[in-house]
């Protein structure tokens, strides 16, 4: 008792839903970027989620839990983020002109992520140095946790945070990606 919904009609509804401001999160999945598949989520305040190798079901549940249940795949609101990410990955962009929505992260995380946003293209810092910047010089380990749970990697550049001994330490998207991003930026050779 069902009828195929044409892609045009489907797209029309999705676009209208976003245009009417009815969504908690609009998301899209960018396939085959230079660093693999990325899910990008955007709220009314800015980009709120970037996930490497997304498992859609898990990811949709998470977005709904954190931001509200009106989560829908729509490409239009994500377009600007997609373009900037592509430019960045092609090496032609060194700074993101994007609003970031980190309302849902706990206070300490937000403070650290805001400090992280100041770490510029092509440079690196350490977990300890970032901790000191936020006024908690002994919180290097906690800063590591914040990096690991960063909701918008790449745009908030947790790949630029490395161990005090110069080792890359860890990355939510896997160490190979961290290395690739740092190489792209010329931070390592």
């Amino acid at each position, binding site marked *: 008792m069902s009828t195929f*919904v044409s892609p045009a009609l489907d797209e*029309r509804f999705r676009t209208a*839903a976003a245009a009417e401001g009815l969504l908690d999160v609009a998301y899209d999945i960018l396939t085959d970027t230079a660093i693999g598949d990325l899910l990008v989520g955007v709220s009314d305040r800015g980009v709120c989620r970037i996930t490497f190798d997304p498992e859609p079901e898990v990811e*949709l549940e998470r977005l709904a839990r954190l931001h509200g*249940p009106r*989560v*829908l795949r729509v490409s239009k609101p994500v377009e600007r983020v997609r373009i900037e990410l592509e430019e960045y990955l092609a090496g032609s962009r060194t700074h993101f002109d994007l609003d970031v929505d980190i309302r849902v992260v706990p206070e300490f995380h937000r403070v650290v992520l805001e400090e992280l946003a100041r770490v510029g293209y092509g440079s690196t810092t350490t977990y300890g140095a970032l901790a000191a910047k936020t006024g908690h010089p002994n919180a290097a380990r906690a800063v590591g946790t914040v990096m690991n749970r960063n909701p918008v990697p790449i745009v908030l550049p947790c790949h630029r945070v490395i161990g005090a001994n110069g080792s890359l330490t860890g990355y939510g998207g896997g160490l190979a990606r961290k290395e690739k991003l740092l190489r792209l930026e010329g931070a390592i050779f």
Partner: protein
Amino acid sequence: MPAAVPPFETFYETHRAEVFGFLGRRLGRERAEDAFQETFLRALRAYPRLEHGEHLRAWVLTIASRIVVDLARRQRPQGELPELGSEDDRPAFEELAPLTDGLPPKERAAVVLRYGYDLGYDEIGSALGSTEAAARQAASAGVRRLRKEQQ
């Protein structure tokens, strides 16, 4: 514990084909497209107020049938429901559709929602903008009328 409200994407993917089929049979394919968009926009507006994820199929079909009734009222002051779109194979509703053609719109909607879509009378009542009792009455009046016609 009742099921949690699923992400809208999941809800939409699960029910869109059935909703579009339902609307296509009531309105014809062309008008069904606008009604389809309106159905899911209405569902989206109401979505934050849902308290659990139970009976979502009935819920969205209810919204769709209300839109069909609204359109019928707006376009046919005498209260005659629009022609059916001609569509491919579907079971319950399709068997009911030609049979119920001659019924007054409320009775027809009640019969089809009850026996074609298996909705409860409370849901049919809200779909038709009336009460559970009125929906039950409309459905049984419709069935009586059908029996009479068949004799």
